[in-house]
């Protein structure tokens, strides 16, 4: 296959990925947000979706960041950013918070990823060269959520595909990712591997395939991401 350069000028911004992902959150879902890019999602969720955001540190019903004068060191999200509570929020301790995460009441988790494999395996806690890594709540949350949405750039800083046939990085959880949202495409993880469903405007299926280390099936109704 001839080299296809990364279409840098057509890649989606982080905000555009978040905007697209937010559309897939079903009304009344209970959703956990990983730290970093996933937290952008809150900006694009509509009030009528009435998403209940869960933060691993015991917040059920996390609201948007407060104005500077209302910031409270006792009310931050998992990424240590200031947050608020929605009306009808509940606070629990860490063990109860992870009971929720593992116990089947988390409809969706939005997590960053170093790698995702075609069977849904997720790697996001340690790079192969590192002596140790950061697990945080990711293993429990990826294991417990009904849907895991991976939100990430399509390739890493070295230009290497992050969507692979099998993981080459240490796994966070097996067969958990259900959908991948990148700066190039929206790809579902099916029993049959990756299904390319949407591409960023101006990016072709061939371009996405070239920057993916696993075979992509292409949806019959392949369409542009409405970004």
């Amino acid at each position, binding site marked *: 296959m001839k080299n296809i350069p990364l279409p840098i000028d057509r890649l989606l911004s982080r905000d555009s990925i978040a905007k697209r992902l937010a559309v897939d959150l079903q009304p*009344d879902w209970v959703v956990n947000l990983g730290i970093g890019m996933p937290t952008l999602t809150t900006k694009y969720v509509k009030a009528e979706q009435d998403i209940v955001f869960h933060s691993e540190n015991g917040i059920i019903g996390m609201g948007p960041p407060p104005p500077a004068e209302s910031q409270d060191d006792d009310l931050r999200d998992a990424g240590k950013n200031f947050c608020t509570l929605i009306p009808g*929020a*509940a*606070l629990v301790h860490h063990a109860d918070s992870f009971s929720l995460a593992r*116990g089947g009441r988390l409809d969706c988790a939005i997590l960053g990823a170093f790698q995702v494999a075609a069977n849904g395996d997720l790697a996001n806690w340690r790079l192969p060269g590192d002596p140790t890594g950061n697990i945080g709540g990711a293993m429990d949350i990826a294991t417990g959520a009904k849907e895991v949405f991976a939100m990430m750039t399509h390739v890493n800083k070295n230009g290497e595909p992050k969507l692979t046939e099998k993981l080459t990085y240490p796994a966070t959880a097996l067969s958990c990712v259900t959908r991948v949202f990148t700066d190039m495409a929206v790809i579902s993880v099916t029993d049959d591997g990756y299904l390319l469903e949407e591409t960023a405007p101006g990016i072709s299926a061939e371009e996405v395939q070239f920057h993916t280390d696993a075979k992509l099936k292409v949806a019959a109704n392949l369409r542009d991401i409405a970004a």
Partner: protein
Amino acid sequence: MKNKKRDSIPAALEAVQDGDTVFFGGFGTGGVPIALIKGLTDKKLSGLTIVSNNAGAGHNTIATLLQSGAVKKVICTFPYSRGSVIFNDLYHSGKIELELVPQGTLAERMRAGGSGLGGFLTPTGLGTEIAEGKPHIDVDGKTYVLEKALRADIALIKAHNVDLRGNLTYRLAARNFNPVMAMAAEYTIAQVSAEVPLGEIDPESVHTPGVYVDTYVIDKGEYDE
């Protein structure tokens, strides 16, 4: 926001089906969802497995449900009491199965089920009939019994206050099994005394977060004796 409120006991019980495993909250007279249990009896289901601290006494709600023939199995901690005549008759005539569980183990099995765990290692029951046939596992030189998580299709619970999101508080010792049952059921139905405006329950004092409550109904007393 999802409408979790139902206007009648029968409407609240719509999800319960033949063959379901059903948790009943309560301990003694506190926190028993009497209206829901009576409504369940009226529904005339069959093949239920019920999980409750007791197995009914006299002609109270659980005893009446047992007598109706809806129940094939009881999981409980304390089946016999001075008045548990109906359970005794059904059990001795082989018409009902019994699984006897220590009370702390029962509560912990539910909590494990609600927490996505497969089970836990407990010292309770070691060397007794309760541990027979169960795996024994040594941790750091101490032997424990492996008890399995317990989940149900339905939890029928009783709470004091509820808000639109289904957040619950319980009065005094009426809390008992209700919170862990709410956690460990596929579908949780709460009978409540009163509904309060959203935001009125202090987020720091919520006993059962609304994410665990699928449906609630205000007890208007129509099932009282």
